């Protein structure tokens, strides 16, 4: 069964500092991989996704993620965070063939301090 693990429940980072959020997945083959963000009181928004090819994926709002097959990981990064990046971040996986299940991790809450 597929699963997604986000080891960090809560991360606090200073404005302007770099941010890295971890995501590990368990799946028989390489699934589609996604990062979503949920700002306070808002719906979920797609940040980026990994489909195939280049293992470094660029997304919106200055985020990027790196797919590492050997580690079954898809970590999200941002070089310099802004106060508006305070939100909850979710990693998600979806199977590639006849497996329409879209599963999410437990989420990581990011707090940005001035």
């Amino acid at each position: 069964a597929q699963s997604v693990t986000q080891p960090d429940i809560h991360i606090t980072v200073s404005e302007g500092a770099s941010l890295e959020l971890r995501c590990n997945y368990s799946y028989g083959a390489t699934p589609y991989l996604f990062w979503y963000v949920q700002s306070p009181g808002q719906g979920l928004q797609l940040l980026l996704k990994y489909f195939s090819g280049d293992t470094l994926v660029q997304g919106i709002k200055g985020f990027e993620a790196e797919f590492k097959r050997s580690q079954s990981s898809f970590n999200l990064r941002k070089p310099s965070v802004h106060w508006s990046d305070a939100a909850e971040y979710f990693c998600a996986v979806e199977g590639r063939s006849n497996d329409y299940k879209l599963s999410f991790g437990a989420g990581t809450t990011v707090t940005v301090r001035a």
Partner: protein
Amino acid sequence: DVKVTQSSRYLVKRTGEKVFLECVQDMDHENMFWYRQDPGLGLRLIYFSYDVKMKEKGDIPEGYSVSREKKERFSLILESASTNQTSMYLCASSSRLGTEAFFGQGTRLTVV
């Protein structure tokens, strides 16, 4: 603009009631999903559907059922609501595998 609409933002129901949560998407998407979101647990998949009249169990289907009679509408049914089903419920849709899922604003259900 793409849209997933959930019928209610807030709902209060009594224990034992049958509860219907409705979700409509206007994007002609094949796939639709129901999740519940609880603090510290993230989004847990209840049921999903990849076609009209098709449904698949997610990770926590117990106590729930779904209906998809039309492509645009996916209903979540709590057969007999219990207090442990108090939660935020999120509906989502996507066009095909590997594409972005669009979410509704959620329904905060309280069972008393």
